[in-house]
């Protein structure tokens, strides 16, 4: 077992206070341990962690381009195999790099079956370039390229189902987790790394700057995403859902109200139909994954 330390992603990086992605990096490196090589795509994390000549990474780390982390990792894995080396290859990429621009490289690498772990820190938009929508941006979120306006309620589409796409590639281990549940995150990343072949972990990582909330609210908001059913923590082994985080669900409104990106749903006038549509997304998630804890009926 690799030695565990808590400082492989070191302090002193340039992330915003309350950055969910920075917390994800700290937890993922802790789970991966020293005997690993990290590959980053272009994005917030790459920029805030490696302004030359400083680096926050105490594990070997490489960044090549925005779209090619999975291909770079393929090459590293092949080289390690040829050299008889045992380090684990871990990718850390944002949702834009994963859901959009890197999709071809990811599909190719998963189909070829390289032994690596692909971590997507999902903050649901292009944060590094100033909060533009990605294929992971949720329905009705206002971003700089899907702004709410007189004729718009924000992003018109739901999140792409990336875990299902990668499970369909035959990935033996696919999981979703959240920075609000560090024990779950650590366990899933460890499991992903220990699983031979390509594995995928998608981490919900709220962005205070992009979503519009105070930095100290990051964990609370990540928790609310789970508690409303808008984010589901689950595990898929060989394509079958094996473990789901169950909750006593709260109305989606409690999550939406905390963030400026959904403010147009409440001000200047409340948009009941849109809130109902988002509630329907959460209801569908709940039904699909069976997340609802049924409470006994209250005694009169």
């Amino acid at each position, binding site marked *: 077992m690799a030695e565990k330390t808590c400082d492989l992603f070191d302090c002193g990086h340039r992330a915003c206070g309350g950055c969910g992605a920075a917390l994800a990096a700290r937890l993922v490196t802790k789970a991966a341990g*020293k*005997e*690993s*090589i990290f*590959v980053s795509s272009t994005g917030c994390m*790459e*920029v805030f962690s*490696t*302004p*030359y*000549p400083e*680096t926050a*990474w*105490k*594990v*070997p*780390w*490489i*960044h*090549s*381009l925005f*779209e*090619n982390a*999975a*291909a*770079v*990792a*393929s*090459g*590293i*894995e*092949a*080289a*390690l*195999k*040829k*050299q008889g080396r045992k*380090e684990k290859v871990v990718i850390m990429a944002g949702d834009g790099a994963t859901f959009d621009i890197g999709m*071809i*490289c990811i*599909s*190719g*690498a998963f*189909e*070829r079956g390289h032994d690596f772990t692909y971590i997507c820190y999902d903050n649901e938009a292009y944060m590094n370039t100033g909060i533009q929508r990605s294929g992971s941006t949720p329905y009705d979120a206002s971003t700089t390229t899907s702004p709410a306006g007189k004729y718009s309620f924000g992003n018109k589409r739901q999140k792409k189902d990336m875990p299902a796409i990668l499970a369909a590639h035959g990935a033996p281990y696919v999981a979703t987790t959240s920075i609000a549940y560090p024990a779950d995150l650590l366990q899933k990343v460890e499991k992903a790394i220990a699983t031979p072949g390509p594995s995928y972990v998608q981490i919900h990582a709220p962005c205070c700057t992009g979503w519009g909330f105070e930095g100290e609210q990051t964990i609370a908001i990540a928790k609310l995403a789970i508690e409303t059913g808008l984010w589901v923590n689950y595990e898929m082994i060989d394509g079958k859902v094996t473990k789901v985080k169950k909750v006593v669900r709260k109305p989606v409104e409690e999550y939406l109200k905390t963030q400026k990106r959904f403010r147009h749903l409440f001000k200047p006038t409340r948009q009941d139909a849109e809130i109902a549509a988002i509630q329907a997304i959460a209801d569908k998630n709940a039904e699909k994954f069976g997340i609802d804890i049924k409470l006994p009926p209250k005694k009169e």
Partner: protein
Amino acid sequence: MMEITEGSHAIAEAVRLCRPQVISAYPITPQTHIVEALADFVANGQLDAEYITVENELSALSACVGASAAGSRTYSATTSQGLMLMAEVCFNAAGMRLPIIMSIANRAMGAPLSIWNDQQDSIALRDSGWLQFYAEDNQEATDLHLLAYKVAEDHAIQLPAFVCFDGFILSHTYEPVDMLTQQDVDKYLPKFNPSERLDAADPISFGMYATPEYYLEFRYEMDQAQKRAKDVIAKAGKEFGAMFGRDYSALIEGYRLEDADTAIVAMGSICGTVKDAIDEMRADGKKVGLLKIRVFRPFPSEEIAKMLSHVKRVAVLDKNISLGAKGATVMEVRDALYGSTIPVKGYVLGLGGRDVRKRNIKEIVELTEKGPEDMFYGLRKELI
């Protein structure tokens, strides 16, 4: 041992003997025979390498970036559209100082789609930081792969390199080639020993971002490495000559140039045609010579200026064009001759596989004697 073989096969054999540990490539005409042959070598145990069959060229070169950074000798091959899909990775690999070797079976760029030869593809990436070697024949194409590894991996250089040869004209042509043995190549090319690599025992960060306080110096260092490559090529080329009898120490070569009035400057397989045309013109008493450019990056400006100093006129043949400007070679040659009064005339010719024959070369020499305006040569006027 001399063997009559296809260019692609001879190149694949040379690459095999260089012992790349990771090969990553994607099929594209006219390069495909090389990577097919390498796949066969791996499948039959003649080459102990990881062969990654990627989903496109961008990933082909990206996988080489990862493997090279992890400390393995890497190889890829492509051409034309495939090279353009790699363009972003090309700049990146050079910036990270990864000595990847890539064969380019030179081919025209679409649109219109053309699978035939010119040199627009690699020329379009002349600014990417890669060393660029151009072969006249299949022997040279084969040998230059060994030279390229030796130069690129030298710690004073650490830059990737294209080995360019004309698609179909060389890649698919059978010629006698002196095939080296594993023993020969092992003696010439040491094991890959990068100065840095991704290693858990000594963690470093590759590919960081640089603010305006740092960026300029990175580019300067790359340019310095390109310039140092002239000496490293001279040394490695001389060593090649001492071992195998073919000396590649010069970045440019003259052919019957010493007493020439008219010099033709060219690059790639066209040099063979030019040499034959020169022999015939010489027999008719015309003093014509060739300056062949073998290395386009680093560009041998001073060497060219010196070698052309005595001629009365220069004709530069470009199988490429920077549209709205001129052929890449004529611009560089004029720059090299800046301050001299030697007239230089540029010819854009042979694009998209248009054949260039001895009689065309003779006509170009006549045109050059008449005046120095640059021109497209061989246009079909009825189509314009």
